[in-house]
């Protein structure tokens, strides 16, 4: 009964989304205020029904309703309650419902926040979001319905994929979706601007906070995925350039470019074409990610069960949204051209370089991801393009980009006197290079040219980002920093920290595999490990072999590490749970491999310097974004006060 209500709710949501997607847009074209006014109520109604539908699915999980096929596939009566609820997005159908729910949440937020915008524009924005909602709900309803019944239902379910029975893996999809799906908001703003035929500084000011919030969640989602892969998959890797990972990274690159391009449009009213295209690209790449994960076109451990019919449907949606918006761009782009000069050394020039390099970076990732497909489609056989390729080619745009961040931050608008710039930056640049060369030799004894280069650039960005905050806070000179500026420094500092972590963890990663019997002592990386054998432990729905490994340094016990190999009872799959000791400057990572007989086990040791900086850096980037959007100019109340103050003053003048 309840799941059927869910289906009904979904159908109603589809109807409302169709209304939301058509009537207000037509109304805006015809100038009919009553039609435009339908946008918000339609969005609200859609939201209610979508949340209801999602709620019924979660209810079905919580009540162990195995007559619902999706619940039987992804749950089990022995599954802990928390995972039962989150299993709702443990498979393709449910995760599409999550996609839809997140989109409805964003739509409501935009509807609520759009009151200060002209109705013609706001109704178009909500209209575009309505079209997107309608398309995705239709996809779920007709090809991927989570409410399908299985009669008679099985006695118990297939259990949730053990890989997903982990807190990190459970937060990762919703956070990622908030980011991914959130790119539909700047997309809607861009299309609305193209439809209206006008894109100005106000438009940029409205669009930017939405973009930053979506970008924030995307940063968080990708970081969570990477961190999860690190601690859960048992090999100590954190990024594999897998097609699905790339599909979340490309929108991130475009979104980063977008929020910087919006800065220029907001300030000077130029780069409108760039901004619109970036907004369309960011969302299109999000959809592309949805396509790659679900259409069965590429092999990936992330891929959901594939189906060409679903693939065709999503391709259709891509054609409608991306193709449609790019067609609209082709027709209307002429209106976006704007005058506004700047000199070669200026903030605009650096932000232009930023745009270009980020687009090149996204292009490089896209080309590498699609290359095997292209080569095969053209009949040249089957090749693979993996980490060894990406790790090299990605650096081509990335290293210059990060280096330029450190300079661009300190440039002024329109033109910047080069000598002033050089004078400011000389000291941190020299310091960065000196430390970049010295540190590897002090700590590690060897360094490649690339490592030194990467370390120097990372240190350079860190130092450059701290210049202004340090001047202000420590020396109390210079103008007070706005939150926007603080956010910028924080986020850029985060980029440097991230890069330090990535460089150190990749270049100085220590890996050893051992065959260990109980009592064996192993020495590696300045540590001593004592293997004390394994014992059996019981979990709620698994049995595990738990090893005990003492981590010692010069005889002193640092910690006892307990890696496990879990066997989940229902799916009978084995999962590695690595033991990690993180002390801020290095991670010691110990995982069990396989039993070698006679109580001996293969043990994997990884020592990863500075790997924590990866997560810290990403966190700082996200924090920087958060601080930036609390800047006065985005706060409604502040604006209203300004207006109230300005009016009498204008009247007096």
């Amino acid at each position, binding site marked *: 009964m309840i799941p059927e209500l869910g289906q009904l709710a979904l159908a109603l949501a589809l109807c409302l989304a169709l209304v939301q997607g058509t009537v207000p847009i037509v109304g805006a074209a015809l100038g009919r205020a009553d039609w435009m006014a339908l946008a918000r109520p339609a969005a609200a109604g859609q939201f209610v029904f979508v949340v209801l539908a999602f709620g019924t699915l979660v209810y079905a999980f919580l009540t162990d309703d195995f007559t619902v096929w999706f619940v039987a596939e992804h749950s089990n009566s022995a599954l802990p309650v928390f995972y039962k609820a989150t299993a709702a997005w443990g498979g393709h159908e449910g995760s599409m419902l999550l996609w839809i729910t997140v989109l409805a949440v964003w739509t409501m937020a935009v509807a609520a926040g759009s009151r200060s915008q002209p109705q013609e524009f706001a109704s178009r924005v909500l209209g575009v979001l309505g079209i997107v909602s309608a398309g995705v709900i239709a996809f779920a309803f007709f090809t991927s319905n989570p409410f399908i019944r299985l009669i008679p239902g099985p006695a118990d379910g297939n259990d949730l994929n053990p890989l997903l029975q982990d807190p990190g893996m459970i937060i990762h999809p919703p956070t990622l979706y908030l980011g991914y799906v959130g790119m539909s908001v700047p997309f809607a703003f861009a299309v609305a601007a193209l439809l209206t035929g006008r894109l100005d*500084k106000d438009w940029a000011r409205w669009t930017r906070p939405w973009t930053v919030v979506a970008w924030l969640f995307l940063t968080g989602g990708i970081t969570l995925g990477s961190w999860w892969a690190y601690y859960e*998959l048992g*090999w100590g*890797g954190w990024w*594999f350039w*897998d*097609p699905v990972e790339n599909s979340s990274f490309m929108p991130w690159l475009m979104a980063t470019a977008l929020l910087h391009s919006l800065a220029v449009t*907001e300030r000077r*009213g*130029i780069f409108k074409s760039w901004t619109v295209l970036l907004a369309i690209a960011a969302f299109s790449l999000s959809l592309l990610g949805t396509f790659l994960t679900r259409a069965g076109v590429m*092999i*990936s*451990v992330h*891929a959901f069960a594939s189906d060409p019919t679903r693939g065709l449907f999503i391709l259709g949606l891509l054609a409608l949204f991306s193709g449609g918006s790019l067609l609209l761009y082709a027709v209307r782009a002429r209106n976006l051209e704007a*005058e*506004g*000069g*700047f*000199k*070669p050394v200026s903030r*605009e020039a650096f932000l*232009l370089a930023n745009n*270009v*390099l980020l*687009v*090149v970076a996204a*292009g*490089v990732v896209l*080309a*590498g991801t699609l*290359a095997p497909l292209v*080569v095969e489609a053209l009949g*040249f*056989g*089957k*090749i*693979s*393009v*993996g*980490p*060894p*390729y990406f790790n090299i*080619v990605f650096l*081509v*745009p990335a290293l210059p980009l990060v280096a330029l961040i450190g300079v661009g931050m300190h440039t002024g608008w*329109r*033109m910047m006197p080069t000598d002033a710039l050089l004078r400011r930056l000389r000291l941190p640049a020299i310091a960065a290079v000196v430390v970049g060369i010295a540190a590897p030799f*002090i*700590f*590690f*004894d060897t360094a490649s040219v690339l490592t030194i280069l990467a370390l120097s650039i990372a240190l350079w960005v860190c130092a450059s980002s701290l210049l202004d905050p340090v001047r202000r806070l420590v020396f109390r000179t210079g103008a007070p920093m706005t939150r926007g500026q603080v956010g910028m420094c924080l986020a850029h500092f985060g980029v440097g920290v991230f890069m330090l972590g990535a460089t150190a963890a990749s270049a100085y990663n220590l*890996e*050893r*595999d051992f*065959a260990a019997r109980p009592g064996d002592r192993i*020495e*590696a*990386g*300045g540590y001593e490990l004592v293997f004390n054998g394994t014992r059996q432990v019981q979990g709620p729905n698994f049995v595990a072999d738990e090893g005990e490994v003492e981590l010692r340094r010069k005889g002193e016990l640092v910690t006892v590490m307990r890696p496990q190999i879990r066997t989940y009872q229902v799916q009978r799959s084995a999962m590695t749970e690595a033991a990690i000791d993180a002390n801020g400057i290095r991670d010691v990572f110990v995982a069990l491999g396989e039993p070698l007989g006679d109580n001996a086990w*293969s043990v994997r040791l990884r020592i990863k310097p500075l790997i924590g900086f990866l997560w810290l850096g990403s966190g700082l980037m996200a924090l920087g974004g958060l601080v930036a959007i609390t800047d006065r100019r985005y706060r409604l109340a502040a604006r209203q006060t300004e207006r109230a103050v300005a009016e009498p003053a204008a009247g007096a003048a």
Partner: protein
Amino acid sequence: MKILVLLWAVWLALAAGASAANAQEGFDDAIVDARYRALIREIRCPKCLNESIAESNAPVAADLRREVRRLIGEGASDDEIKTFLSERYGEFVLYKPRMTPTTFVVWAVPFLLLAVGGFVFWRTLAARGQQSLDEELPP
């Protein structure tokens, strides 16, 4: 700092030894071991969902790792090992595409994109440099 260097030296001293492939998946000689680990990261497990043989638990991955160790022990170069594997499993099994006329394009694309980007950048700078800097400042 000195302690770290000292410990690192001790570790290197312990690790330096004959290039014996031990039964447990690695080499005693640190340099050969590092080469082995880098190489197995570049070989794709032919039966897995996009994993290298370094990371896969599949039996065929373990077998291939063993072959790589054997070939290193016999003195084969990285290229010879990759050729050995691609003769049996196809180019598909190499994560770093080898340079052929087809894959040349794959490797050239990033540089081409950078060149196009550079071109767009210079053209835009030139155009904007000609335009007026004056414009009313935001309120």
